[in-house]
């Protein structure tokens, strides 16, 4: 988006820096009992900045990488085999978020004051690469969704589907549902909602009653990831056959495939080939 160039946290290099480009000093200086961050969630007026109480600005570890060169099969003979690098996704961002994101957060905080409040409904706000992600607690998803759609100054009238992501390494929050929102009224503003649920209790409320166009998208995410969208009018498989076992896009589901023979040589199926991820 257009904010990208202005975003100070915007990544400068194409190189695979293992740690996201975050201002790590804020994480170090901000503590949980910091009064600035703990009790301002209730106050919204007078241009005061709403910080989320206890939002964890530490990066989220979703796995780790061993060795130097990403080789995953066979013996690591490089001598770097003992190297362990955590895979970190960006944590909560401090204010200001930049662009219209501050305005959206303030408006949402004001609108949710009667109910759970911004701190109650949203666990953290991540602004990364010029895009804003609101991590919404699943029990408050419908309330947040309805507010975002109906509030005249927010008016995210379009939800561009839901995309599932499976992080087997993030204990208790393995399944993520990502909702990109679009506000045509306010000049193609975009934000993103992200809702997590554990593998053991894969339930997320359905937003079909707020955005009816999400019907098929939620069916697809159920089909591919096994996230059950409670309240969906007819949550059935959509791409796979009705009697298909398992949910193919999960990371523990194999790709499958057969070896390919060509001129006497044999190439193993893609997920069994040598890889450097």
């Amino acid at each position, binding site marked *: 988006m257009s904010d990208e160039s202005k975003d100070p946290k915007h990544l400068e290099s194409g190189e695979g820096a293992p740690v996201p480009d975050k201002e790590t000093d804020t994480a170090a200086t901000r503590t949980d009992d910091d009064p600035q961050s703990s009790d301002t969630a209730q106050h919204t007026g007078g241009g005061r900045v709403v910080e989320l109480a206890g939002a964890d600005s530490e990066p989220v570890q979703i796995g780790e990488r061993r060795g130097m060169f990403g080789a995953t099969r066979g013996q690591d003979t490089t001598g770097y085999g003992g190297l362990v690098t955590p895979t970190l996704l960006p944590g909560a961002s401090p204010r200001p978020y930049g662009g219209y994101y501050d305005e959206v957060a303030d408006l949402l905080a004001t609108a949710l004051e009667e109910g759970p409040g911004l701190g109650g409904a949203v666990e953290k706000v991540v602004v990364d*690469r010029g895009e804003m992600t609101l991590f919404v607690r699943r029990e408050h998803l419908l309330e947040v969704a309805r507010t975002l759609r109906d509030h005249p100054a927010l008016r995210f009238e379009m939800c561009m589907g839901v995309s599932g992501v499976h992080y087997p390494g993030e204990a208790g929050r393995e399944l993520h549902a990502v909702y990109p929102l679009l506000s045509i009224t306010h000049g193609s503003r975009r934000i993103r909602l992200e809702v997590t649920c554990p593998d053991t209790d894969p339930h997320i409320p359905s937003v079909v009653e707020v955005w009816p166009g999400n019907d098929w998208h939620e069916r697809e995410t159920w089909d591919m990831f096994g996230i059950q969208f409670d309240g969906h009018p007819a949550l059935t498989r959509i791409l796979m056959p009705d009697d298909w076992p398992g949910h193919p896009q999960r990371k523990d589901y194999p790709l499958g495939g057969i070896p390919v023979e060509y001129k006497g040589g044999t190439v193993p199926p893609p997920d069994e080939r040598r890889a450097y991820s």
Partner: protein
Amino acid sequence: MTTHDQDTIYDDSAPSPGLDPSLPGNDPYGASVDDDTEGARVFTVSGGDWNDLVDEATALHEERIVVNMGPQHPSTHGVLRLILELDGETVTEARAGIGYLHTGIEKNMEFRTWTQGVTFCTRMDYLTPMFQEAAYCLSVEKLLGVTDRIPERASIIRVMMMELTRVNSHLVALGTGGMEMGATTVMTVGFRERERILRVFEAITGLRMNNAYIRPGGVAQDVPHGAVDMVRGVVGEIRRGLGELEMLLNENPLLKGRTVGVGYLDLTGCVALGVTGPVLRSTGLPHDLRKSAPYCGYETYDFDVITRTGCDAYDRLRIRIDEMYESLKIVEQCLDRLQRTEGQPVMVEDKKIAWPAQLAIGGDGQGNSLDHIREIMGTSMEALIHHFKLVTEGFRVPPGQAYVAVESAKGELGCHTVSDGGTRPYRAHFRDPSFNNLQAVAAMCEGSQVADVIVAVASIDPVMGGVDR
């Protein structure tokens, strides 16, 4: 990271109806056994026996008939299955069944490098390959943080290819739509004009479809010598062909009789169902991402967003025709800019992302440029290592996620990519406009005639390759 271990592989040897001979319905390709058709007669129609069938059906004195149209049916735009509940000629309920062309592209992309991902996503909606490539590459570039460093010439080529793709897709939409209504001349004209664009694609990318031309960081190679003149000629030819199409369609009383007021979906319905593209613009809302959230430098081009207010199939058809003229306008501006930027790079400067070799036609058809091979094989061991590592291993993308949307010929095409810092996409999801827009079939068709269903579906212009992915 290994993605699965032996314990978690799903057991698919469990008996399932149809494959296990001990269970009822031992014909795996036969009618399914679990459908709720108790007490109802089932007719299988395969052509030729219509009179018998009609006699039999009328003898039942049954008012409510459920017709299963597709997934193999010449007028449903590919393997789309429509389940229509009829009362006489009136459709009382319409449902779309999809998934017959699901090929697991998104899952497959997780097992290839970021660059190879282009080869997969280009095959989703096979009429708009450049849009998938562009959306995917823009999101990868956003993850890499190189969006601002894409060379100008690469963006110009991308815009030109995308706009030619839009014309290509709209021509097929009109052509097949016309054919489904019985107007084969519209089809032949549409496909004849499309052929010109495919020839341009072949000249520039080497392939007519599934081009894999736009790559993370730029485009695979510069346009060849003489391409600018070729495209300029083709633009003129297509303009003439479009004029022919307009004469056939615009004021054709038969066409208007079939399309005006058919497939009605107003602004409220469109926004509620998340419908975008020509269908949304036929309600009068000038929503076009090229204007409202420009990418690839669209803000610097001069073009109009076409809207009409009829909310019906006829207006969508007229919008597509007018959009093609606008696209040709953009293509001509691209050509001027291509002439101005002759010789400038088409790939990002960063040698850790850009593939080292430009392609060149060798004795065996295609291959790497001989200069490059001479350099890596003869003079520079480091260049050889770099080439080998980048091509086999790929580049690493910092962890995070990005969502980028482009205005495809059919609406908002969004690409959500997640990286875990590896050389492969951790997740790549495409929000295909046809997938979303097909949900509107029920709203457009219920209460209308069976024949109008075909027109309504054609006006959405779904491509099942994109819907099922």
